[in-house]
C-alpha cells in the first residue's frame, strides 16, 4: 500500500480492460454453443415428444417379466466371470508395462517410449471398439469379450501403477543399492512394498469398472448379459428388457458393495 491509497473507497476486482476481455470470451462461448446446436440436425418434434414416449415405454416395461430369470442370472454370472478373468489377466500383464513406463525403473529411453506407447494405445481405444475388433478375430462369444476388456484395462492399470512407481520414496532404494543388491532385488524389496497399496486399490477399482463395461459387450456379440438385453429389445419384449435392466442394476450395486468391502479388508 502506498500513501496515495489512503482515503480510497473504490475497489474493483477487474480493470476495465479485463472486464471487456471477459465479456468477449463469454460472447464467444455463447456463439460457439449456439452454432453447435444449430449445426446438428435435431428433429425437435421428437425431442418435445420424448416425455410421452418415455411414459409409454415405461408403461410397456411394467410389470417386469421374470419368466426368463434363470437364463438371465446364468448369463449375468458369465458377465461377472468375463470381468473378473479379464481384470486378473490385465493386472498381471500391466505389471511389466508399468515397469517399462515408469521413468525410474525403465532400462533406457527406448523402453520408456515402448511402455508409454502401449499405455496410450490401450487407453485411447474404447472397450466396445476393442470388442468389435476381437469379435472379428475370435468370433462372437466370451473370449472376445475377455480379451477386449483386458486390452482396455492394461492401459488403465499400467498408467496408474507406473505413476505410483515414479512417486515412491527413493531413500530405501538408495539404501538397498548400497548393500550390493541387484536391480531385481531392489525392485522386490524397496519398490514393490511401496506400490502394493496402489496396486490393490487400482485392481479393485478396475474390476468394479469392468463389471459395468462387460454388461454392454453383448451388444456387439462379445458375450455377457448384453446379448439377452439386445434380443429382448429387438423383439420388443420390453417386460423382459426391464428384468435384464433390474438385474444389471442389482449386479452393479453388488459389485459396489464387494469392492468397498475388499478395499476395507486389504487397504
Amino acid at each position, binding site marked *: 500500500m502506498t500513501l496515495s491509497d489512503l482515503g480510497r473507497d473504490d475497489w474493483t476486482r477487474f480493470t476495465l480492460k479485463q472486464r471487456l476481455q471477459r465479456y468477449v470470451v463469454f460472447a464467444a462461448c455463447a456463439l460457439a454453443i449456439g452454432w453447435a446446436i444449430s449445426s446438428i440436425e435435431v428433429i425437435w418434434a421428437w425431442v418435445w415428444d420424448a416425455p410421452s414416449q418415455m411414459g409409454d415405454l415405461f408403461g410397456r416395461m411394467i410389470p417386469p417379466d421374470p419368466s426368463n430369470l434363470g437364463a438371465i442370472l446364468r448369463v449375468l454370472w458369465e458377465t461377472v466371470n468375463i470381468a473378473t478373468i479379464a481384470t486378473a489377466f490385465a493386472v498381471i500383464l500391466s505389471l511389466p508395462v508399468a515397469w517399462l513406463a515408469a521413468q525410474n525403473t525403465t532400462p533406457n529411453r527406448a523402453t520408456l517410449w515402448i511402455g508409454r506407447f502401449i499405455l496410450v494405445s490401450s487407453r485411447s481405444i474404447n472397450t466396445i471398439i476393442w470388442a468389435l475388433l476381437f469379435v472379428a478375430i475370435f468370433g462372437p462369444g466370451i473370449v472376445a469379450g475377455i480379451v477386449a476388456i483386458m486390452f482396455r484395462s492394461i492401459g488403465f492399470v499400467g498408467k496408474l501403477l507406473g505413476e505410483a512407481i515414479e512417486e515412491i520414496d527413493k531413500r*530405501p532404494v*538408495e539404501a538397498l543399492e548400497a548393500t*550390493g543388491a541387484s536391480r531385481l532385488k531392489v525392485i522386490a*524389496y524397496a519398490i514393490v512394498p511401496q506400490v502394493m497399496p496402489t496396486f490393490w486399490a487400482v485392481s479393485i477399482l478396475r474390476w468394479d469398472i469392468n463389471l459395468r463395461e462387460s454388461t454392454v459387450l453383448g451388444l456387439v456379440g462379445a458375450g455377457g448379459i448384453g446379448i439377452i438385453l439386445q434380443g429382448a429389445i429387438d423383439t420388443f419384449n420390453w417386460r423382459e428388457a426391464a428384468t435384464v435392466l433390474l438385474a444389471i442394476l442389482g449386479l452393479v450395486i453388488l459389485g459396489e458393495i464387494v469392492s468397498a468391502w475388499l478395499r476395507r479388508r486389504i487397504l
Partner: protein
Amino acid sequence: MLKISDLVKRYGGGEPVLKNLDLTIEGESVVSIIGSSGAGKSTLLRCINRLVEPTSGSITLNGTELTRLRGAELRRARRKIGMVFQGFNLVERLTVMENVQSGRLGYISTWAALMRRYPREDIRRAYELMERVGIAHYADKRADELSGGERQRVGVVRALMQKPEILLADEPTASLDPKTSEQIMGLLRDLSRELKLPVLINIHNVHEAKEYTDRIVGMRYGRIIFDDLPRALDQEAMDRIYSGSPAADRAGEMRAAS
C-alpha cells in the same frame, strides 16, 4: 584399511565439491567428519560406496580399487561397505526382520529373497544383532511402527548384517532427539570395538564427535583442513572449519593464485 587419494568430485561443470582429497582410515577406529553444510561430507561418504560417482582419484578398501568397478563387481564390493543414513531409509511397509535381512540381499539368491526364505545362519545372526541393540522383540513389527531411535537401530543392524569391512554413517543422529542421538553414537562406538570394525561418521554435533570418536576430520569446502585427535580440536580449529563462506574461500584462492 580405507585409502582415499587425490579424490575429486565435480557436479556438471561447476566448482568441485571435493578437491584433491586424501584420507586414510586404518584399523578399527571411529572417525568423525565435521564441517558446515555443503563442505562435501556427504559426497565424500557416497563416493566410497559409489552412490555418487567420483570424477577422478582413487579409493581402495583393503586392497580393492573401488573407483573403476562396474556391475556385479561393484555390487560385490558394496556388500563389504555398510551404510547408515540420516533418514534411516528403511522400507516402512516391511517388517523389521525383512528390513534387517535386506542387508543380506547381496549374498542370497533372488528366489530366497522373494520367498523370504532366509538362510538359518542369517536368521541367527539377525536375532543376535537385534538382541545386541535391543530391538529383537520388534522382529515381526512393521518398520513404520517404531520410534526414530528404534528405526535407526534397525538401520545399523541392516548394515551390520552385510558383515561389512567398514561402516559409513551419514549423519546418523541428525533426525533424533539429543538423548537418543547419544545412545546411537555410543552404540556405534561400542559395536566398532566389539566387531573390530572401522566406522566413518558424518556428524553436525561437534560435542558428540569429541565424545564418541577416536579421530576428527574437519572439512571445509571440499578440503580436509583438520585431522587429529578430538582433544586437539580447539576453538581456533573450530573457527577455521566453520567460519567463512564459499565465496570468501574462492576469493582467497584467486588472490593466492595471482
